[in-house]
């Protein structure tokens, strides 16, 4: 049976582990890992786990199909909308988390026209987070992370053939095999792919890999179970750090090389990065920062043997994982007239794509990792997020807007959220930690690896990151929504030993002067609205 846990919601209560201890496990205080495809004999236990989840984060494939959220179809405005709801043809490019979510939401909101989902991979939509975690340690199968299908919804799948072009005038998607698929409205959700090791010959060596697809994860799992003498992880971002964590779990020696000063610095800044560095070293990772890999070398049979680093050292390794970030899948949109580039596809806060002139293109929507959208809370700067939670939330808004007219459309105002499970620690973030000039430990103990850090920009709170303290984060999310002052000036339980703000040490980003301060209210996507305010402390 298929299981997926929305770890953006999960707060580590562990009720699922009590109910189904062979399927769900807690590492450390609250880091949840689980089997995405447990044996059918576990069904009753897993159903109980799902019922017991205090935040209702566990989604299962239903056998009986008797449940599923039902919404009464919204009353259509005007003849066109009504006809579109009934007979319009929607095409979704990207058989992804965002793509399948959008399809589900459209059906639940009463859209009955034909719905086609195009995907370049041969798989039905699957869940990626387990591929760099549970799959590598053997708790889940690489090909077992297919997303549960809660509702039977009528979709035409076109899988295994990538989209190759988009004709906005003729309103059709061209596939790589030459076929054309017409649409009335289009959702672009083609996401990302892993950035490969840049030297093609070296990347082709046996033992050099990336982690993005189930095939990647299966290959890396095979390499890890063969007990390699040493694994080299190139890049200490989240994926690289999770791979290193899996190696240590399996007692495989691992060296992590990153050209930055500390792990996770690009996402969380150097202060928290230093905490991550200590954590890695305590778990036996050979962490080398401020160093680059200059060459990967193989033997006569094409097997990886060693790596040469920029500090002159040479490492004997038989596996190298390139965790160098990602490339957006936009090539198929070249020449389409949409504003698509290395940054993704630009859209408005309602997920409507923009053309190269910056004008909203009618009938084309964008969601998920490929979308680049303005966020009012962050001074209307365009964000491009590679987060599971954003893919879901943005797809819901895009889907709603694809079948709604004018003022009934929703803005995508969810605060960005993400998590990483590594070294028995749950790292969770809300807001945009790189949108900061200062950071402060707000609660807890850094030494004990149980703390919340708050990030601030020009006197207001913009993000919070928790290590094993995720139950406090929704409080900080509320502060971000309210544009509350930074640093937080109120007393809390579990005060930190040093509560002084320090420089955020995040990567530079161009920041215009004259900040827009916005307050966001509302819980559901249908309720969330922004309001511009001026604050005396700015």
């Amino acid at each position, binding site marked *: 049976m298929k299981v997926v846990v929305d770890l953006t919601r999960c707060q580590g*209560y*562990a*009720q699922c*582990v*009590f*109910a*189904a*201890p*062979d399927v769900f*496990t*807690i*590492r*450390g*205080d609250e880091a949840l890992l689980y089997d995405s495809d447990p044996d059918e*004999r576990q*069904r*009753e*236990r897993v*159903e*109980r786990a*799902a*019922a*017991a989840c*205090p*935040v*209702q984060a566990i989604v299962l494939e239903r056998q009986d199909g*008797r*449940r*599923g*959220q039902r919404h009464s179809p919204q009353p259509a405005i005007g003849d066109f909308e009504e006809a579109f709801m009934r007979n319009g043809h929607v095409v979704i490019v990207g058989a992804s988390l965002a793509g399948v979510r959008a399809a589900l939401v459209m059906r639940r909101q009463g859209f009955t026209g034909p719905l086609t989902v195009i995907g370049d991979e041969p798989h039905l939509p699957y869940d990626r987070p387990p591929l760099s975690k549970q799959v590598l340690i053997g708790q889940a199968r690489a090909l077992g992370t297919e997303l549960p299908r809660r509702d039977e919804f009528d979709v035409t799948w076109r899988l295994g053939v990538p989209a190759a072009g988009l004709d906005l005038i003729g309103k059709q998607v061209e596939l790589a095999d030459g076929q054309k698929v017409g649409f009335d409205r289009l959702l672009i959700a083609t996401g990302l792919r892993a950035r490969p090791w840049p030297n093609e010959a070296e990347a082709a060596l046996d033992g050099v890999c990336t982690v993005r697809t189930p095939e990647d994860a299966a290959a890396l799992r095979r390499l890890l179970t063969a007990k390699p003498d040493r694994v080299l992880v190139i890049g200490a971002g989240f994926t690289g750090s999770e791979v290193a964590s899996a190696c240590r779990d399996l007692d495989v020696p691992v060296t992590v090389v990153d050209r930055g000063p500390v792990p996770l610095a690009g996402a969380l800044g150097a202060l928290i990065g230093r905490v991550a560095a200590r954590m890695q070293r305590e778990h036996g990772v050979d962490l080398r920062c401020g160093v680059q890999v200059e060459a990967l070398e193989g033997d006569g049979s094409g097997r990886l043997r060693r790596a040469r680093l920029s500090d002159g050292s040479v490492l004997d390794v038989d596996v190298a994982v390139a965790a160098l970030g990602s490339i957006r899948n936009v090539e198929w949109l070249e020449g389409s007239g949409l504003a698509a580039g290395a940054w993704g596809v630009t859209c408005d806060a309602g997920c409507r794509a923009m053309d190269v002139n910056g004008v909203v293109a009618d009938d084309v929507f964008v969601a998920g990792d490929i979308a680049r959208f303005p966020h009012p809370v962050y001074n209307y700067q365009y964000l491009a997020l590679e987060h599971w939670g954003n893919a879901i939330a943005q797809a819901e808004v895009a889907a709603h807007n694809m079948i709604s007219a004018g003022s009934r459309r929703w803005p995508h105002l969810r605060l960005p959220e993400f998590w990483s499970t590594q070294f028995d620690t749950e790292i969770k973030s809300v807001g945009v930690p790189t949108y900061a000039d200062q950071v402060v430990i707000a*609660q*807890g*103990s850094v030494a*004990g690896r*149980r703390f919340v850090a708050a990030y601030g920009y020009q006197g207001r709170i913009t993000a919070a990151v928790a290590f094993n303290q995720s*139950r*406090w*984060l*929704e*409080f900080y999310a*509320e502060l971000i929504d309210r544009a509350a002052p930074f640093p937080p000036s*109120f*007393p*809390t*339980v*579990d005060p930190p030993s040093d509560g002084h703000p320090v420089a955020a040490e995040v990567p530079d980003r161009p920041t215009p002067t004259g900040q827009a301060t916005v307050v966001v209210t509302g*819980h559901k996507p249908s309720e969330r609205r922004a309001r511009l305010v001026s604050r005396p402390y700015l």
Partner: protein
Amino acid sequence: MAGNGVWRQILDYSHRADPYPLFAQLRETPVLRLEDGSYVVSTYREIVALLHDPRLSSDVRNLPDVAATVGSTSDDAPPGLPPNFIRTDPPEHDRMRRLLTWNFGPPHRPGRIDGMLPELLEIVTGLIDDFAGMGTTRVDLVDRFAYPFPVTVICRLLDVPREDEPRFHALSGAVIEANNPATAGIAERQRRREKAMADLGQYFATLLDARRDRPAGDDLLSGLLRGDGAEEPMTREQVLSNAALLLVAGHETTVNLIANGILTLLRHPEVLDRLRRGNEPDLAARVVEELLRYEPPVQILSTPRNAVADIEIAGTIIPKGSPVILALAAGSRDPAVVPDPDRFDPDREHNEHLGFGGGIHYCFGAPLARPEARIALTELAYRLENPRLVDDPPPYRASPSLRGPRHLLVDIDGVEPARPPSEHPIAHLRRLP
């Protein structure tokens, strides 16, 4: 009616059988200031926000009027115990809770509760077997079922002699009474509770002394004394304090969940029938979750948390130092969040009830209470022949916060024999060796 009047009525015993219309009135003032300066919060989103608000402390020593009485106990008072874990804040709270969890659940003992399921079924089977043999008969399902079942379980978990029940039941009753906001002011109730807890601690001290020469068992108490190896174990006084809490919580709450459950099922025979038919494997779990929303055993967190800073919520400022009371049962029926909240509907999607609270103080015993209630209700539904409620509403226990029937008289035509293990749903849930 003004908010304070509604609150007084909720506490008044005459409204115990159905406080929900009053909770609806209470929600009209989401954050209500009481005459004694404490605040009652009754709407779902505000309760959830406060459960996750680090400006709210659970350590009563932070309350100004309680702090004033600490250390002023007279000479004849029993030696006080340190606060148990639910009356502390992090990091002390988190450390004690980790130590308690070490022998109870994940990460160290993830299968402990799952492994107890056959034993839970055996206890339930025995209790129901005892109703049999007389054809049509009248049974008090509180005295003969809902109470003895969880007491037996908690006694086994703590390795407390079952025959001591009359003794610790009286002590526990004093703790529950001290929790009842209708009985006295906050500081006075705190004093009474500490006295009762100290007496229970004394009971455990005697128990541990008597066990000293035995090899340590797998019970939670022995585990607490041993510690978990990774951290400093609790002091003996902390073990006594937390043991007292576990005993009280383990046998004063699940009894109400089970009794409220039987009552609710008898009032909703269509759900009882579905449970009896037994062809929906996840139904019992969903019934229990819906009970926790619809008729929760803990209605009000009446031992106040307290604001360590001014807290602005729902347009009201709760000033620093104020006690804060969370009306969980009112929140779980808040129509702003829960569709059709006054309907008992086990098929409800997305049941994010407040029955076990939330945040870092989420009910420690929840993973045990769930299978206890599930097995108890499943077996009663299957085995009782033609059960009929004698009094509706039944007489209630005094407390408005830990609310449930004092007695639940049910007429039955007989008792079906227990299903043989090979046919029982629990049987194929036994963990494979």
